[in-house]
């Protein structure tokens, strides 16, 4: 973990509620896809956890949905503003277990961490298949970005306005040739995926956090291997250890 200041380079809407922010600063604490940031915002006591969507030596990309005070405030920040951020939080995804044909399944604001993960897997010479779930066509984002990585991308929307009508699980159930799966999204989706997948996999969880770095026990959950802190021992858990 590192605490440092970042400069906003870009902050733009991708849909009516989802924004992309590009931050410039010290990214050295980030070691894996699936990790997250914890962002200090003016007037709010708690930091706000947001997944790393992508990063390089001196920039981080995050995608966030406006759902409350904090994210609304973020959406109004102008470029050149400075943010105090904790980086390198969470365990992140372990790509060594992926096999050659992993599935990457992102739902809603669970899509962002899949991006860097896909990039890493492709860089490791693997062939990830990406499945993204949204409510409706207007709410989709980053589909092209995933395609540009060279990944095969399948879309599910609840209303069928683009891709398969239904849930990501409707797509996953039809697939059988995957070696592993990685996912991030709302808990009901994670549970459904855990049930319908035929391989092992890693699932990223959300919880209301106090600190985000393992100090407060605000985010604990019970697993088959003992109590874990979503922020420090997670957010990524293995399918086998989860107690639903």
């Amino acid at each position, binding site marked *: *973990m590192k*605490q440092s200041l970042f400069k906003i380079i870009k902050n733009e809407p991708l849909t009516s509620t989802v924004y992309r922010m590009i931050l410039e600063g010290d990214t050295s604490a980030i070691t894996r896809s699936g990790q997250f940031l914890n962002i*200090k915002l003016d007037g*709010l*006591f*708690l*930091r706000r956890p947001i997944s790393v969507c992508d990063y390089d030596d001196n920039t981080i990309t995050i995608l966030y949905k406006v759902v409350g005070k904090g994210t609304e405030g973020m959406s109004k920040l102008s470029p050149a503003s400075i943010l105090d951020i*904790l980086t390198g939080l969470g365990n992140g995804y372990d790509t060594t277990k992926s096999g050659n044909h992993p599935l990457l399944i992102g739902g809603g604001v669970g899509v962002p961490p899949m991006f860097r993960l896909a990039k890493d897997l492709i860089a490791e010479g693997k062939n990830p298949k990406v499945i993204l779930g949204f409510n409706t066509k207007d709410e989709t984002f980053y589909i092209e970005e995933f395609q540009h990585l060279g990944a095969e991308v399948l879309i599910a929307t609840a209303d069928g306005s683009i891709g398969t009508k239904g849930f990501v699980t409707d797509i996953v159930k039809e697939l059988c040739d995957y070696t592993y799966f990685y996912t991030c999204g709302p808990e009901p989706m994670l549970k459904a995926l855990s049930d319908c997948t035929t391989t092992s996999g890693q699932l990223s969880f959300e*919880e*209301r*956090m*106090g*600190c985000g*770095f*393992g*100090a*407060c*026990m*605000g*985010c*604990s*959950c*019970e697993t088959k291997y003992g*109590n874990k802190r979503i922020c*420090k021992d997670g957010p990524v858990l293995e399918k086998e250890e989860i107690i639903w």
Partner: protein
Amino acid sequence: MVNTKVTLSGITLDNPIIPASGTFGYGYEFAELYDINILGSFSFKGTTKEPRFGNPTPRIAECTGGMINSVGLQNPGIEKVIQEELPKMKKVFHKPVIANISGFSVEEYVYCCQKIDQEDQVGIIEVNVSCPNVHHGGMSFGTSPEVAAEVTRAVKAVTKKPVYIKLSPNVTDIASIAKTCEEAGADGISLINTLMGMRIDLKTGKPVIANKMGGFSGSAIFPVAVRMVYQVYEAVNLPIIGMGGVSSPEDVLEMMLAGATAVQVGAANLVEPYICKNIIEKLPEVMKKYGITDLNDIIGGAHK
């Protein structure tokens, strides 16, 4: 040069800054960030007789100037704390620590304090009486002077270490509770624990915290904490560890003027992980600004 050393029951601290129980874990997470040996001491996570997972999640809610937590004393239990955590803690922190002990019956407090009494690493036992008393319909030990005194006496009987009773602020008359603890043999008073608070999620219409209510802390509660430290200082002749919303060197001085000999920093650690380091580093400069050369000179200064 200014003097920041203060003494709690014969234990001299390099400075009065002590991370508060439950907000500093067992120190490791912070030891990754800075050398935590700069701290006066630290109060480790509340420990109970039995291992506890604690309360269901969500356990955390946001408030203006603070947060609510309902961790519910998650901890591996006194045995494991002694066998596993203390030895690990010793590697990152070489000064006497404060053992924060909780219980749901007088026997549990006694059990834990008896065990922890054996540990050289522990300088002070901080007895958290904010927990619900299972034998008294779940009312917290800290809300009744008699029950708080009973815990104090029982614990004092089984340990030679200094015992600080950590009081709950959710009471009508904090001074009289502190007084009965003093009469029962307490060596010091820690205060305040969290205020009981609640937030409701407008989207669901239900409390944010799974357990409905939780403990409210952070800078928002500072004026209540200063007031209670002031009141308790008038009521007892014991050293006071003041806390509740402290997040700057100025806050430290204010707490000490109110009557605290040392000061704990709680929720602020969670959102500003370097806060204790920053306070310790800036304290001498802020002391100079206000013409303070020795912190001991200002303890209780507001009462003069």
